[in-house]
């Protein structure tokens, strides 16, 4: 700095300390004989007065904006054809996470863009992610889809969790909450481990707490990607020898001794990391924090953590010893598996030490009263979600019902007693194929069903005794007519053979009996269907799918009151299931209770405003009340949302009976054109003709369905569009030929 500038600065500062009116004199004095200096300081003082707001707010906010904007997908960008980016919600070593909208299903989703990796690694990782998601475990993030951008980047679409990460909760958790969170994480781990997937990167950032207290574990299988990520490698130039580079940066604090030593991780590795998380939840400190990575690795291998009681007094001794056991250096000394850890945690939570009255909003309310039996109900009306992992893998297949193209939705699932025979040794190749099959089956598209069949076939080829895989095959074939147009006459006998095979292998397998019951229903063998469904209920009373199937059977066979009972039971078991709720809302039509039908349907529309079937139900109820104009509006809305045989039939029929013959004719034409493409069913065409009064055509189309043994032709026994012809002798004869009760 020049001495001149130094003088300027000093004088400027001094002048600012003088009252403005005295500055002139002060400066004239101070700059005596140096007009240049005087001019400079005066000029700067003038600038100073004008610059009150200049650089006042720091640029950090703008930098944050820029940093975010750069490399960030702008709002409105589409990934694939259906995902529209809304905003960036997270960023980490494993890529950026966006909130996006699935425009096809009109729901929020989270999208993670994965870092570039070799195709092999990606496939392996995504495979594991799919396997874990297929477990349908309530504490594991549900994966919806996997896609690639135009540039070839892969992305994972999953459910959007409205909540915060555990990281943000640390410091404000009660002991009860800590136990509850640990329980739910153990449950997720137990389930994933049984499918042969180790998380490898359990840390507070990978655990989310939903606003209703449900814990979700994220990123199963994905931790592996880190090892392959170029970016991570570049940023970790001095990976030390002990610390093999398969370890994620930033998570070293949660690493187990075996990972630190570069050994292969196993399921007990996750238990150690969970122990670190539990320790941190209790103390707000990580148990091992070295001065650098070498020191940290050393501590993990040798240091006994500072006792938790030094940080927090009120921790029950049982919980202290659980954390200690998780943090054992030798794997053999830890819990044998996550189920054992979960059991230990449950006994803490039900022990006296925690029996202090729980406040209403505590997440501890999700704790089961009766571990593994699932008999208690939580305040939210959901079944306790706990205990599933320990009980083994549950198969929660989505339900087959008479609504084509229905959505798959995450469901609340109830713990089920499982017979031990149902599972082959965990993590076998067959089992992994099976889980992939379940994942594909849940997606319910023609292509995915075919792929699912391949996976299930592979599973039974590897493990010929794998009864659940046969049920998977049976399920796939039983819905094939809907999704691929394969005639029911071809698909159902195959489905039946597979279901029977499963029962032969394991006569006590409720899933197999339920599926077989539903297949018999599709084959119009009503008595046999009922027999199987009753057997399934006997074997597994908490399995909502069976009640849903039973509802369909009773509905079509003219037993409305019993049908309603069944669907109510299904709904109690799975209160948030969309398919069950659609059936429930429709069940009121069976007893002409339009008031309740409207109420239930409107509630459902509030939850799923884009789901076309709900507007069809709404329209039928309004027709029942003779509100034709309103009914037409509802059907129009349904068609607008989704142009399917079902929606076109409803609108066509309603148009016909309201005198819009021209419109009805146009719609029936459209349906007839769809028929050869298998995009409409004979009965859907028949319904419009029935409305138009053309009984001849109506019956000839019904005959077509009859000849092809169309799976759910029996729905004509209750569907409102057939009301006008139902009492005719020809219709009654058709019912008789199907074995249905007739006059």
């Amino acid at each position, binding site marked *: 700095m020049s001495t001149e500038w130094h003088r300027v600065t000093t004088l400027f500062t001094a002048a600012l300390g003088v009252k403005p009116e005295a500055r002139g004199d002060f400066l004239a004095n101070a700059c005596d004989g140096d007009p240049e200096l005087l001019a400079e300081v005066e000029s*700067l003082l003038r600038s100073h007065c004008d610059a009150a707001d200049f650089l006042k707010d*720091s640029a950090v906010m703008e930098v944050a904006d820029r940093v975010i904007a750069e490399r960030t997908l702008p709002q409105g960008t589409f990934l694939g054809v259906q995902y529209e980016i809304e905003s960036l919600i997270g960023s980490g070593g494993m890529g950026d996470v966006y909130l996006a909208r699935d425009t096809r299903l009109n729901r929020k989703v989270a999208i993670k863009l994965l870092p570039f990796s070799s195709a092999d690694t990606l496939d392996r990782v995504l495979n594991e992610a799919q396997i874990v998601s297929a477990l349908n475990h309530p504490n594991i993030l549900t994966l919806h889809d996997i896609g690639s951008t135009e540039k070839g980047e892969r992305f994972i679409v999953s459910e959007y969790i409205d909540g915060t990460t555990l990281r943000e909760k640390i410091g404000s958790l009660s002991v009860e909450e800590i136990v509850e969170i640990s329980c739910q994480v153990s449950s997720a781990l137990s389930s994933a481990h049984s499918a042969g997937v180790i998380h490898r990167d359990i840390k507070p950032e990978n655990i989310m707490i939903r606003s209703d207290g449900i814990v979700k574990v994220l990123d199963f299988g994905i931790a592996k990607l880190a090892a392959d990520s170029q970016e991570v490698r570049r*940023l970790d130039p001095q990976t030390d020898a002990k610390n093999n580079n398969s370890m994620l940066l930033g998570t070293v604090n949660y690493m187990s001794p075996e990972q630190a030593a570069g050994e292969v991780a196993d399921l007990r590795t996750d238990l150690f990391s969970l122990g670190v998380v539990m320790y941190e939840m209790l103390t707000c400190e990580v148990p091992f924090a070295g001065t650098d*990575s070498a020191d940290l690795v050393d501590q993990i291998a040798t240091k006994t953590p500072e006792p938790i009681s030094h940080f927090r007094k009120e921790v029950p001794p049982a919980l202290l010893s659980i954390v200690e056991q998780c943090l054992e250096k030798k794997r053999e000394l830890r819990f044998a598996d996550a189920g054992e850890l979960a059991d230990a945690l449950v006994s803490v939570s039900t022990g006296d030490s925690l029996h202090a009255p729980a406040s209403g909003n505590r997440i501890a309310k999700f704790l089961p009263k009766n571990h593994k039996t699932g008999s208690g109900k939580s305040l939210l009306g959901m079944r306790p979600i706990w205990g599933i992992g320990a009980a083994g893998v549950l198969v929660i297949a989505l339900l087959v019902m008479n609504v084509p193209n229905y959505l798959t939705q995450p469901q609340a699932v109830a713990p089920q007693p499982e017979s031990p025979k149902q599972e082959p040794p965990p993590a076998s190749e067959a089992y992994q194929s099976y889980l992939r099959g379940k994942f594909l089956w849940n997606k319910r598209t023609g292509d995915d069903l075919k792929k699912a069949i391949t996976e299930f076939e592979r599973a039974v080829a590897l493990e010929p005794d794998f009864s659940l895989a046969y049920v998977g095959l049976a399920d796939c074939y039983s819905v094939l007519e809907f999704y691929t147009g394969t005639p029911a006459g071809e698909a159902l006998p195959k489905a039946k053979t597979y279901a029977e095979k499963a029962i032969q292998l394991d006569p006590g397998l409720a899933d197999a009996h339920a599926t077989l019951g539903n297949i018999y229903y599709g084959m119009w063998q009503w008595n046999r269907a009922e027999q199987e469904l009753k057997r399934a209920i006997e074997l597994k009373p908490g399995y909502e799918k069976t009640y849903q199937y039973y509802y369909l059977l009773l509905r079509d066979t003219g037993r409305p009151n019993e049908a309603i009972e069944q669907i109510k039971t299904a709904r109690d078991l799975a209160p948030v299931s969309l398919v069950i709720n659609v059936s429930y809302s429709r069940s009121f039509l069976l007893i002409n209770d339009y008031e309740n039908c409207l109420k239930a349907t409107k509630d459902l529309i509030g939850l799923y405003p884009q789901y076309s079937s709900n507007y069809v139900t709404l329209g039928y109820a309004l027709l029942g009340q003779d509100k034709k104009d309103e009914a037409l509006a509802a059907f129009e809305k349904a068609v607008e949302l989704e142009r399917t045989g079902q929606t076109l039939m409803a609108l066509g029929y309603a148009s016909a009976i309201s005198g819009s013959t021209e419109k009805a004719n146009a719609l029936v034409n459209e349906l007839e054109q769809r028929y050869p493409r298998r995009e409409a069913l004979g009965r859907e065409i028949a319904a419009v003709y029935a409305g138009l009064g053309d009984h001849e055509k109506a019956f000839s189309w019904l005959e077509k369905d009859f000849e092809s043994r169309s799976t759910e032709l029996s729905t004509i026994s209750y569907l409102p569009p057939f009301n006008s012809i139902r009492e005719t002798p020809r219709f009654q004869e058709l019912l008789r030929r199907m074995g249905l009760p007739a006059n």
Partner: protein
Amino acid sequence: MDPGASTQMLKEWSNGNALVLEELVPLVYMELRKQAARYMRRERPGHTLQTTALIHETYLKLVDQRQTDWKNRAHFFGISSKIMRRILLDHARSKSSEKRGGGAINISLDEEFTAAQDPKSVDLIALDEALDRLAAIDEQQARIVELKYFSGLSLNETAEVLKVSRTTVANNWNVAKAWLYRELTR
């Protein structure tokens, strides 16, 4: 991110290993981005971003607290201020080249008008050049501007980082601001 590694890099950088800066910049940048994303998510309308928190948390994430001495901290803020300055400059340059190039057609009169009218809007390119000239006259004053404006540090924090008194920072900040303002309004 392993704090040990970046602390080590900071040390090496301060010992004169300029190559390390190349490693450090993307690392700081990535962490900054991560923290910024967290803030964006947490921000709700009506709350203002606590600007210094952003840079502080980035610092906490990147630098191992156990081995922190003032030197490290000063280095870190020195680097992050430079990085932030660069981010803004790059953005301003790309925007201005858009305006001069074909992109000009797309910019509505309204936009140009509001930009010119906003008293807080600063011509970042001119500011950058002026800051370089200031550094030639008085390096410390230029650093004060960097720390306060680009990293959002308070007077006290800036004083801590530069190991001078708060008064010194305040006095130099005032004169530097006045000087820069005059440069930009000539």
